[in-house]
């Protein structure tokens, strides 16, 4: 119970820092899991869970309000059970994945229900009630942070013993299969990201990235750098800069030039 409360508190704080300060990504598994580990007394395990879940939930990103999976809650629940019942991070995927999926649905439910407050906002607007708007914005955010943390509270409070029994009885073939799945799942995430950015015309750059990483073994920072260099060359050397000088001047090349 105390554990559940502590974990929930961590979640609320992480969510709040993320949503109130401009998407600081403190809700990402790699940050949530170590903190959960910290309050449950095994930060090391938390860090390792964080690494595992970060990749699993890599694509569970909220784009356009579609939440394929709530990575934050998934990571918190997975890490809690990993530490409380002593499983490995890989096995706990059997919990983290479904937990993330369910909580994701719950999150989208909140996004839907929240419209019920719109009439009262209309009224605040009619009265030009600045104070009221401020309160409403804060209230909606903080309540959201609490609500999305609740499932984790219930899961950790009541689930531990049941979960332990279930997970212990999983046959090896399933836990191994889960390990395999843990390698695969990032594909969904990348698929979701790609879906948003993909365009016929630019698709070739996906393969350029593939080429750099697969054949030249360039690390990801180098790939991004290559992309930026290409864009700068394309813009400023290959004569694409028919744009007004105003724009040109504010481009990044100024950096090293007074």
């Amino acid at each position: 119970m105390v554990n559940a409360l502590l974990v929930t508190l961590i979640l609320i704080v992480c969510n709040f820092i993320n949503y109130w300060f401009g998407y600081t990504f403190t809700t990402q598994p790699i940050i949530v899991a170590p903190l959960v580990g910290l309050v449950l007394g095994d930060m090391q395990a938390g860090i390792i869970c964080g690494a595992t879940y970060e990749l699993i939930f890599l694509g569970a990103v909220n784009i356009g309000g579609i939440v394929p999976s709530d990575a934050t809650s998934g990571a918190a629940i997975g890490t809690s059970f990993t530490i409380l019942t002593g499983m490995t991070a890989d096995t706990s995927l059997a919990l983290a994945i479904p937990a993330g999926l369910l909580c994701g649905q719950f999150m989208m439910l909140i996004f839907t229900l929240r419209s019920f407050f719109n009439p009262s906002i209309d009224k605040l607007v009619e009265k030009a009630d600045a104070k009221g708007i401020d309160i409403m914005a804060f209230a909606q955010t903080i309540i959201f942070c609490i609500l999305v943390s609740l499932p984790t509270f219930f899961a950790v409070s009541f689930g531990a013993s049941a979960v332990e029994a279930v997970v212990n009885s999983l046959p090896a073939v399933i836990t191994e299969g889960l390990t395999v799945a843990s390698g695969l799942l990032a594909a969904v995430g990348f698929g979701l990201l790609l879906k948003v950015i993909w365009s016929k015309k630019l698709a070739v750059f996906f393969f350029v990235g593939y080429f750099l990483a697969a054949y030249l073994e360039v690390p990801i920072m180098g790939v991004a750098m290559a992309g930026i260099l290409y864009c700068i060359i394309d813009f400023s050397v290959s004569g694409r800069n028919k744009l007004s000088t105003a724009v040109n001047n504010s481009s990044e090349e100024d950096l090293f030039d007074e």
Partner: protein
Amino acid sequence: MSKKDSLFHLEPEDKKMINSVTWRTMIGSGPYQYEKMQGLTFLYAMVPVIERYYKKKEDKVEAYKRHWEIWNTTPQMAGLATGLAASMEKQASEDPNYDTKSINAVKASLMGPLASIGDSVFWGTLKIIATGIGVSFAAAGSILGPILYFLIYNIPATFVRHILPVIGFKSGENFLKKASENGTIPLLTQYASMIGLMTIGAMACTMVSISIPFTYNVKDVSFTVQSIIDSIAPAILPTGLTLLCMNILKKGKVAPAVLIIILVIASIILHCFGIL
């Protein structure tokens, strides 16, 4: 160029207001909902602007109404729009003939481009770079993992969050007009997408891991299927699976959650048969 003329210089009064707008803009997706999306955020961000420039209550009400509309973009990018809206509200408050409809028109026209630039830069590139570095430390059990992740992502993000409202406010409408006329916005969108695609292409093949352990023997030499695949094209399975997922998701008939479940089950089954 004297400091006063600089793009980033603000009078103290303006500075105070823009600072407030900046912090308010940050709540981004905090009050997200499917009807007005981030509408409440925009409304909330405009409070200091409206309270400063309008004195009469009816003017205030009108202005508040204007900003209590649907709004949605990448939170880190929204500052350009709120800053710009602040400068337009200022003009509107000074000039009775100002066409206030243009304020919402500009907002509407900015949502898409800002979201597509922002989503590829922040979701598609920066977050992935941070993950790449952070996970490599975290997997080794080092606390540096989360710390580097947080810093690599937030140092540039914080810079953007704070500079965009200033740019929006200072350059005003003109900026937008010029930027769309001379093609800057589509070009930036294209560049952001290109870099996003490159990073995802690179990450998909290193971070999605899938390999076929199946081995066969010819005489006393043994070959794994995976080594053959690698000699033809390295990491082609992860890349292929990623593209497959994208195509499935694009068709829109399978929800991401369902796809995840399918993949988990498929992994278990294929592992049983020794294929994965």
